[in-house]
Structures are given as C-alpha cells and as structure tokens.
C-alpha cells in the first residue's frame, strides 16, 4: 500500500495507472459482448456513433465499440505472450553470460548483438509472409518473443556483471552458496526491477509490431486487434469517406496504450531501481 502511495506521487505513474485501468476495464467488457466481432454484416453498416452504437459501425457491419474492446484484449494477449515468453530467454542468457563470463559470455553476447544489429523487422516480415495464415495471436506472440529478448539480455547481463564484482558475491560464496543460490537470492532482487521495466517495453514493442504487421496484411485478419482494425479501416478508405470514427478508435486506443505502458515502465523503474534509490538515500546520509 505504501509502495502504491509513493508511486502515485509521480504524475506519470498516476496517469498511466488510470489509463491502464480504464483500458483494462474496457477490454474486459469483451467477455460480455453481445456481438461476435468476426461475423460480418450482422448489423447495419457504416452507422455514425449513436446511442445504439456508441462508436458507430464499420463498413463490414461490425460494431466499433465492441470490436475495440476485443482489439485491446487481443493486442494485450500478443504483448503478454511476447513479453513473458521472452523473459524465459532473457533471464537465463543474461545470468549465464554475466556470471560465467569468459567464452560463454562472449558467445552469448555475440548472438544477442547479432539480434540487435540485424534489421529484425525485415526478418519478422520474411517469416510472417511465409506463415501468415497460421499467425494466430499466440504464434505471433511467440514469434515476437524469439526476437524481443536481446536488448534486455544485454542490459541485465551488465547488471549481473557489476553485481559479480561486488563484495557480497564473495561473502555468499564463503557462506557456501552455490551458483543457483547466488543467482536467486543475491542477484534476483537487483534484477527484478529491470526485468519488470524491460517486460513492459517489450510489450509495447510487440503491440507496435502487431499493428505494423497487420497493416501489411501479414497476420490473420479476421481476429480483431488494434492492427487489424486499422487495416480494415484503411482498406475501406475510411478517411476519404469521412468515417473518421472507424479509424480514430483504434488509433486513439493504441496511442493511449503506448503512452500508458511507457510511462508505467519509466516511473516504476525509477522507483524500483534499487541502485538509484539506495544511492540517493545513502549519499544524502553520508553528506
């Protein structure tokens, strides 16, 4: 509770917290949706916003309000799968490279550097072109997870590298701790905030790529996501025909989501980063 109160002092955290709560509530409405967002022309097409259709309907005869709710949910699923699964690559790679050092470190860092250096977008496109029919939410998430771990692994590895040089590593070894104990008990408390902050970044990155791939028509287009909503609005010329509400809904939703995720990441990592926090307190006390 105290943590939350402290965090709420940061305007960025407060804003992102509120936006995310609203977006989550909105997306959870999709579980009670009266319509199926994949069925075309069940209702009148191209209706402007009204009390019956809060955000109007699109040219396919789908209610925009409800497909927005599904879109957020589905985009978040992609992001969560990509974010969480990539942690299972990031953390072991970072721990191994940072702690073992030497040849292990060099090989692992070469691989992750290669991932950073190569224009991943093109490789993902290449893959997506080949498997586009099978690119469901979870597959897309998994695909992105395979590519979204390298930067974070680098960040966490350099943290481990500096932790390894700290005195308490030697104290732990002299206390009889093995490598696993060292990693979990000594290093995890330092690494957790980083893992969390980078997780949010990867999620935002995944949502952005989902949108881009969808606009290029490279994922399953009948699943409502933020990206596919934009895709359909564009392919039905929604701007030229004055159906702004159709295009604006997914665009505004995604902008809100990006800002909220980014601010959450920045504010919470600033708060959680034990180094900066301890330094701040420590420095002021030593005076």
């Amino acid at each position, binding site marked *: 509770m105290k943590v939350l109160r402290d965090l709420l002092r940061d305007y*960025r955290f407060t804003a992102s917290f509120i936006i995310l709560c609203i977006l989550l509530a909105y997306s959870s409405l999709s579980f009670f949706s009266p319509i199926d967002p994949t069925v075309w022309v069940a209702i009148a097409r191209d209706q402007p916003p009204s009390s019956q259709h809060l955000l109007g309907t699109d040219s396919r005869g789908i209610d925009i309000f409800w497909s927005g709710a599904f879109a957020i949910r589905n985009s978040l699923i992609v992001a969560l799968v990509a974010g969480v699964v990539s942690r299972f690559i990031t953390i072991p790679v970072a721990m191994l490279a940072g702690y073992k050092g030497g040849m292990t470190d060099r090989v692992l860092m*070469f691989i992750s*550097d*290669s991932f*950073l*250096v*190569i*224009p*991943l*977008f*093109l*490789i993902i*496109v*290449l*893959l997506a*072109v*080949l*498997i586009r029919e099978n690119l469901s939410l979870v597959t897309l998430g998994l695909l992105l997870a395979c590519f979204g771990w390298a930067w974070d692994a680098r960040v966490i590895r350099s943290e481990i590298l500096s932790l390894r040089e700290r005195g308490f590593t030697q104290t732990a070894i002299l206390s009889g701790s093995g490598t696993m104990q060292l990693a979990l008990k000594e290093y995890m408390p330092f690494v957790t905030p980083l893992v969390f902050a980078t997780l949010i970044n990867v999620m*935002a990155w995944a*949502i*952005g*790529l989902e*949108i*881009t791939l969808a*606009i*290029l*028509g*490279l994922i399953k287009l009948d699943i409502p996501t933020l990206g596919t909503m*934009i895709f359909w609005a564009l392919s039905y010329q929604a*701007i030229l025909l004055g159906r702004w509400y159709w295009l604006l809904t997914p*665009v505004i939703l*995604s*902008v809100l989501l*990006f*800002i909220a*995720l*980014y*601010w959450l990441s*920045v504010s919470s990592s600033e708060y959680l980063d034990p180094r900066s926090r301890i330094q701040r307190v420590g420095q002021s006390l030593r005076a």
Partner: protein
Amino acid sequence: MLFIRRYLIPRLIQYVLVIFVGITAVFFIPRLLPTDPVARTIAELRSRGSYLDPASIDAMVADLTEMYGLEGSSFDQYIAFWQRLFRGDFGVSFFQFPTPVIQLIKAALPWTLGLLLVTTAIAWTAGILLGGVAGYFNRQGWSRALDVLAMVVRPMPYYVFAFILLLLFGYIFPLFPVAGGASIGRQPSFSWPYISDVLRHAFLPAMSLIILGVTAWFQTMKLVVQNLNAADFVQYARFGGIKERRIVSRYVIRNGMLPQITALALLIGQIFSGALITEIVFTYPGLGTLLYNAIMTGDYNLIMGITVFSIVAITTAILVIDLLYPLFDPRIRYN
C-alpha cells in the same frame, strides 16, 4: 599497433561474423518452416483468380524452384546462394518479371538513403544538443516542459506517429503532399522546381522520423547528462569558475555524446526499420515501399533480396560508426 589489434581487428571479425550468421539465418529460416515458398506463390496466384491448368502448374513449380534456388540438397542450395550473393545476384523479381531484384533495389536505394541519412543526422545532432542543454539545466521550467513533451511523443511506434502526421497535414490541414517522392510526371533535374518538389514530398516522412528521433535522443542524452552533472570533472569545472557555456559544450555534451555514438551503432537497425515503415505510410518510393509491394504481391525473391541487402548495409554502417568512435574518445585511441 596496439589499437589495431585490440580495437580494429575484433570489430572486423565481428563484422564478418554478423553478416555470415545473419545471411545464413535468412537462408535457413524459410527452409525450416513448414511452408514452401513455391506452393505459396502458386496459392497466391490462385487467390488472385488466375486460372492455372495442371500442366502449367508443373512447369511453374519447376521454374520457381530454379528461380528460388531450391534445387538440390540444402547444402548445395546454401553454397549456390552464397555464390550468387558474391556476384550481386539476388535473382529476379517474380512480379516485375524479369527485372533483377538488384536493379529494383538500386532504383529505390537513393530515396531511402537520402531520407535515412538526413533525418538520422538531424535527429541525432538536435537530440544530443537539446538533451545536453536540457540535462545540464534540468531544474529549469523549460527543461521540464520539454521532458513532458518527449514523454508523450517517445512511446509512439513509427507507423502510428507517421499516420497521425499524415492525417493532420495531409487531410485535415492539407499543406504537404502525402504520397510519392516527387510529383508524377516531373522529370528529374537539378532545377529548383524539381528539388523543391522533392523536398516538399520528403517533408512529412522526414518530419515524422526526425521528431521521433529527436525525442528519443533527447531523452537518453538528458539522462546521461543529468548523471554527468554529478561527475567530478563537471563539478570541478563549475567550482573552478569555468563559464557555463563552456562547461555545457566542452564538458557535458562532449562527454555525454560518447555513449550516444555507441547507441547509434546499436540502434541503426531499428532506425532503418522505422524508416521503411514510414516510407510505407507515405508511399515514399524507397526500399520500404518496394518491400510493401513485394509483400502485397507475394514476391518472395524481392523480400529476400531486400533483407539480405539490408543486413549487409546496416552491418557496414555499424562498422563505420564503430571505426569513427575512437576519433571522439582518446581513451580508446591511446590505450
């Protein structure tokens, strides 16, 4: 010389290795997937409604197999793949048959290169300068205001941001052309009307890349400089009564830009991807739009070609930045 052995050679080795690994991955990834590019292309044609009789399908399969270099064992294909690459042969485009892929890339490259180089240079320099000054004066109101602004713009992905600019200045306030690299029908020439036409067309894609770039560099630089403010040599310079303008330029920015050079090398691949996406939004006639057309027509060879070419180009750019770095950091030069 120590510098060559400790800095140059490792980097050259890394350069060659990354290209090798990247291209090998590009070669093998499609082959490891269950889908077959030949079958894909034919399905693509069918879905476009072309009628194909079984005989012509067989002929086509054979043609495509040869064209995609899918003959023989994977190893033979792999060797053949490299041999063609060294000749600069990326095969022919399937949907602009029989134009070689390399020719299409060559035509699109100047547009992308121009856009990318100019915007990256402006964004990096402006971001470093702004971030440096804002970081040094981080207690001042304007510095905080800039920070808030950057906090709003920074999280936008390239596509979304370009799209918002397109809506704003293309449709709501139609100030700039929204598509193409130059007006249709204009002949390329070194005349002001043509150049201004090109610049006007480039304005929105460039703005979109520059604004996103500046905010990103601004934020990282500001953070670096805020930490540098506490650095002993900055404190000492202030204590010594050195004029603030000099502290900002020679102490804070000069040192703060070093990590940004490294960051530029690491991020150039992402910046490149962003430029491709931005081009697609504005149908700017560079590699991005070429890629878009290739995706839309299922032109597998062209996508491969663009990918392989980009890997080499980006890795080379990184190498160049890495090699320039010692010019700015004497600790690397003399160690």
